[in-house]
């Protein structure tokens, strides 16, 4: 099933989405990798506000290639997803602290994130790994950038306005479902069969 969602994504819309569904997201998407997660969570612990309100928006695991155009305005060259598994160690805390609507990345996430998505009403979608130009094509505007000097181009927060960003295959829904884990279990089972037959 396909869903066209707009940020801030209402909780009732998120609850309509199930694993295996495809989402096209419009509105605000912010990039954040390891360093940005750490920094935002440090600020949260100190009671400080990060420069972006993450509530209901898309949080994109992505370290883009950006370039300034002739008018000194940032443009996206390539912006595909990075491996989300690295963020598993703090994604649940991030979801509880900032309540993004949809996490976007690649490779899937684990049990901690799945639990946080169920408890806090959030979903996780897979953008086709490496499809950086397709992603760039759906980014309509670079609205802002934060922490660029401190964290560098791939790690900082890029704030994008996107239109029908996708296809995003939902692998974690608000009901505790995790398609990647199902796929991994299947791969493990096949491995055992193959090794027996060798």
């Amino acid at each position, binding site marked *: 099933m396909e869903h066209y969602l707009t940020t801030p994504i209402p909780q009732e819309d998120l609850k309509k989405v199930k694993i295996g569904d495809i989402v096209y997201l419009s509105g605000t998407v912010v990039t954040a990798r390891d360093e940005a997660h750490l920094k935002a969570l440090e600020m949260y612990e100190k009671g400080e506000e990060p420069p972006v309100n993450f509530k209901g928006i898309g949080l994109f695991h*992505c370290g883009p*290639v950006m370039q300034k155009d002739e008018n000194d305005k940032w443009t996206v060259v390539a912006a595909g997803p990075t491996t989300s598994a690295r963020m598993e160690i703090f994604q649940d805390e991030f979801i509880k602290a900032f309540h993004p609507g949809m996490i976007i990345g*690649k*490779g899937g996430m684990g049990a901690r994130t799945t639990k946080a998505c169920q408890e806090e009403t959030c979903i996780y979608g897979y953008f086709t790994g*490496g499809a950086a*130009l397709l992603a760039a094509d759906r980014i309509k505007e670079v609205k802002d950038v934060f922490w660029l000097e401190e964290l560098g181009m791939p790690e900082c927060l890029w704030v994008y306005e996107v239109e029908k960003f996708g296809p995003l*295959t939902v692998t974690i829904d608000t009901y505790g479902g995790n398609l990647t884990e199902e*796929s991994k279990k299947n791969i493990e089972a*096949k491995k055992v069969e193959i*090794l027996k037959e060798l």
Partner: protein
Amino acid sequence: MKDIAQVIEDTATRLLKIAATELPSEVREALLKGERETEGALGKSQLHAINENVNIAETQIKPMCQDTGIVAFFIKVGDKFPLKSEIKTALIKATKRATAAVPLRPNAVDMFKGNTKNNVGLRGYVPWFYFDLVEGDRCEIIAMPKGGGSSNVGKMKMIPPGKGIKGVKEFVVEALAAAGPLACPPYTVGVGVGGGEDMCMNLAKKALLRPLYKYHEDPSIAQIEKELLEILNKLEIGAMGLGEGPSVLDVHMEFAARHPASLPVGVVISCWALRHAGATIDKEGNVEWHPH
């Protein structure tokens, strides 16, 4: 007389651009075939997105993936080619130039001083050079950028020699099952057997340069390559790990002699974006671009 060092720099800059923006034709065809033959909607949509992305890269001449990788060069220098160590200097210059011009994402990070911003390491190791000496008066250069996500699933194991080829196969299956959905499948797999703990990984990486579906000239090795291709697809990893479509496009192996007490096996995995491009320069500075 052409400035040969300049020719090398210009050629390598262009090779890095070709590698980042255009897939080798047989990889492209394999991905298109994958899309056509995949029945499940999830797998088909992933492969469609990949192919659409590859098209945009080619028409807009932009990197097909934001991770433009760590750069390696495979160089074969002829005895009578006029330059030797200056080749290295020219390739380092080319890497810096391509980083700004293509552009490539700055991916060389020094553990103490941070990102060098030009894809050249501060300690002389990045880009990485595989030099080989050959007869003749030409110099062959192949540029191979490789992304971090797929490098993270590379594996090496010293297998008890008593396990033999079966042990090698088992390890390759385990390595691919562990990679699962993590590194942007469908994968191409390079396997290096023998040599030593370092050489097996080098051979595995080198094996990825052989065109898809061109099997080893030794029929007994070719047979294992084909068998592994079939077996690995039974893991049902699927496009982007969603269980539908091809898991592995091809498997290539290289074998070296091993120490009697050791059976080293290296597995190097490429994501769908198996990127490389090559050219050969003669002693006059004429460039012959390899079919791409």
